[in-house]
């Protein structure tokens, strides 16, 4: 993973940030020196000491019986971990497309002026560090930043000045005014509506045999809400039937697709429903352990969610002998800042304490998942829907939506519109329906399904949003007419994929950079028709990548070539099939200066 967004590229300063031995051993003991809990250990050390220095790495490796590089490769993968310099306050400012639309540039400038360093650096007194980060799930309230796990939204230059003064004064992060996350539920549908008691779905579920329960879910035609749309019942059936010592349920709350924030809202508003859904899944597949994999950006929710879990345990909805039928409990696993961990096999690797690199498949996680045991990885929204399906029946659920896309979808809507937020809608609506609902006028383009999805033009606004037409995990970004689509959106998305590639497959690691170079050449006015042809041709190579990230990393460019060809064509040089950007004078300048000679360009 490209690390230029993290603190790692800076030289460690002195000794003041090492985690002292006794607290390190307390942390290691808390996790039983278990190497599969390396993520938790690193997070705890990072929190305690502000960084994870070489000394700590050695100690951790020794205690976990790992080699030093085993620890280092996990540490270096996630961008919220720092192996060197530490700042008392680490400011991570979102640099996603919508953040830019909402005025990020001014915010970044104000931070730099007030702190006195540029982004990517730490102030000389070690107090404040400024870093960029990919989408933090706050698109409906940008510009936003994470500072020591607290989220500051709707930032203005004035707010930033106040925050910086308070940080300089050493105020505790919890006392700094302005940390606030809004839920912005703009339309509540059958899943979000609180019309059943906590535990009712689970109670009904355990009255059925697991096979009957899976059949009920199959009848509902529920498909995975993370984006891929795999039938949930089929996943559970495969997982239940797979042989293993243990089975696991994992809830994917990594939500890294820029523009998506509905899982944050579900987990804030209806956390019991998500955990209840996990328990139902556990009963269905025969698992006693569930893991909620939560992105590090949502660390601020930790104590809230732990309390909810505790309350559910005290109500005997989790723990041993639930309704006299089965045992099931849940732990929360945090990530460390990596988009690719939203891919289920990468998520499993990460939960096992490793780099979040997708696995080769088959075997699929339902056969060999977490700890090589059968594992069902389901999205937050999918598990929530299960609770309602079991409670109200498959027939009821099937009556919502379309034949191929039953039920509802939570849409995270942001960008150039009056009412950004979360909307729960019956499948089958069109892009136009969305635009009308959210108050979007003069729309140039709509990005459906985040950067990995499809950028559609006005002629396509009558298309249906559903698995059978425009499929989406729920991110809708509206792009107004005044935006420079290629520069403001497509280039930003392409940089995002370069940043977030795990680096394992060559086309994903290298071709994404080639794509960016070609796009920038076109933006400089030096593109030719052949550049477009080349980028289309490379799609075949991108399909050889191992995971969905790699398959879709060129989609921002490919879908806009398809749907906004005229924007590219307008920038191309006509009447030539080759333009060189090579400039001899510029290229020899530095070496001539170093050697102390005058450049002799000789009419070249």
């Amino acid at each position: 993973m490209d690390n230029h967004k993290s603190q790692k590229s800076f030289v460690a300063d002195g000794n003041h940030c090492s985690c002292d031995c006794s607290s390190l051993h307390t942390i290691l003991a808390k996790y039983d020196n278990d190497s599969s809990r390396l993520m938790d250990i690193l997070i705890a050390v990072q929190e305690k000491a502000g960084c994870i220095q070489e000394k700590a790495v050695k100690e951790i490796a020794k205690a976990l019986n790992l080699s030093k590089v085993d620890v280092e490769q996990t540490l270096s993968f996630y961008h919220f971990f720092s192996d060197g310099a530490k700042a008392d306050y680490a400011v991570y400012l979102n640099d996603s497309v919508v953040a830019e639309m909402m005025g990020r540039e001014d915010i970044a400038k104000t931070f730099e002026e007030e702190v006195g360093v540029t982004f990517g650096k730490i102030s000389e007194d070690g107090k404040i560090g400024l870093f960029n980060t990919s989408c933090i799930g706050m698109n409906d309230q940008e510009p936003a930043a994470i500072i020591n796990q607290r989220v500051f939204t709707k930032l203005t230059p004035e707010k930033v000045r106040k925050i910086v003064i308070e940080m300089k004064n050493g105020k505790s992060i919890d006392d700094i005014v302005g940390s606030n996350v809004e839920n912005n539920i703009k339309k509540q549908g059958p899943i979000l509506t609180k019309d059943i008691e906590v535990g009712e779905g689970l109670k009904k579920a355990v009255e059925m045999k697991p096979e009957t329960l899976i059949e009920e879910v199959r009848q509902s035609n529920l498909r995975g809400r993370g984006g891929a749309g795999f039938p949930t019942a089929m996943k559970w059936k495969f997982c239940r039937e797979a042989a293993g010592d243990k089975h696991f349920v994992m809830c994917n709350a990594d939500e890294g697709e820029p523009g998506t924030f509905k899982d944050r809202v579900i987990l804030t508003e209806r956390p019991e429903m998500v955990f209840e859904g996990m328990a139902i899944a556990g009963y269905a597949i025969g698992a006693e352990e569930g893991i909620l994999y939560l992105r590090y950006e949502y660390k601020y929710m930790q104590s809230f969610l732990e309390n909810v879990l505790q309350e559910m345990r005290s109500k005997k909805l989790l723990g041993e002998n639930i309704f006299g039928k089965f045992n099931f409990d849940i732990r929360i696993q945090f990530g460390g800042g990596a988009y690719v961990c939203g891919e289920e096999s990468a998520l499993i690797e990460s939960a096992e304490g490793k780099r979040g690199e997708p696995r080769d498949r088959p075997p699929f996680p339902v056969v060999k998942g977490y700890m090589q045991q059968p594992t069902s990885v389901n999205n937050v929204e999918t598990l929530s829907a299960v609770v309602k399906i079991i409670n109200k029946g498959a027939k009821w659920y099937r009556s919502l939506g379309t034949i191929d896309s039953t039920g509802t979808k939570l849409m995270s809507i942001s960008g150039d519109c009056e009412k950004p937020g979360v909307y729960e809608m019956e499948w089958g609506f069109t892009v136009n329906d969305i635009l009308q609902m959210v108050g979007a006028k003069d729309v140039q383009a709509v990005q459906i399904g985040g950067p990995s999805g499809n950028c559609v033009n006005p002629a396509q606004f009558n298309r249906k949003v559903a698995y059978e037409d425009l499929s989406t995990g729920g991110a809708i970004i509206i792009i107004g007419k005044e935006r420079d689509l290629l520069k403001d959106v497509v280039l930003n998305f392409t940089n995002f994929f370069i940043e977030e590639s795990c680096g394992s497959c060559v086309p994903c690691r290298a071709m994404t950079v080639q794509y960016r170079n070609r796009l920038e050449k076109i933006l400089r006015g030096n593109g030719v028709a052949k550049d477009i042809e080349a980028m289309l041709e490379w799609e075949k190579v991108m399909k050889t990548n191992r995971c969905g990230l790699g398959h879709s990393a060129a989609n921002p460019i490919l879908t806009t070539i398809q749907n906004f060809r005229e924007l590219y064509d307008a920038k191309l040089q006509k009447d030539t099939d080759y333009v060189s950007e090579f400039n001899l004078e510029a290229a020899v300048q530095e070496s001539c200066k170093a050697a102390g000679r005058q450049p002799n360009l000789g009419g070249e």
Partner: protein
Amino acid sequence: MSKPVVATTSLAGCFGCHMSLLDIDERILDLIELVEFNKSPIDDIKTFTKECDIGIIEGGCCNSENVHVLKEFRKHCKTLVVIGECGRTGGLPAMRNNNASITECLEEAYLNCVSVQANDEKIIPNDDELPMILDRVYPCNEVVKIDYFLPGCAPRADLIWNALVALVTGDEMNLPYEVVKYD
């Protein structure tokens, strides 16, 4: 009918691609029946004496001389074929591109390296006759338009041969697996 005229050059390369070109064994006799060579290290003609049909380029551009020669080839050859990784991507010489500035490279090579001896005046070569070093190593297609690329380090003799024959005869190029594999 006169024979097609071929020119070749090695820019920032190791001459390995030219060695591979010579590795066509006895077919070299067919080759001289098939084509006529102009500017090339093979016949030691230093400057173009006529317009050529095919220019074969090995190596990328690391200095102003490479750029000059490459532009001459573009000017005098109808079709340019880059052979090998250095011409195609910058190759091994391009390792300097990402890790150090050209100033650091020159200082390391001429001033600081442990093997530097007898440079008491601390001179980085600066004679006007010397080519000027570029800030980074450029693949040929960033400097001029290239018509065809033959990959490999070096490309196999058979690949070069097949490509050349296809270009001269106009027949479709023969590309069996054995010819384009790299191990």
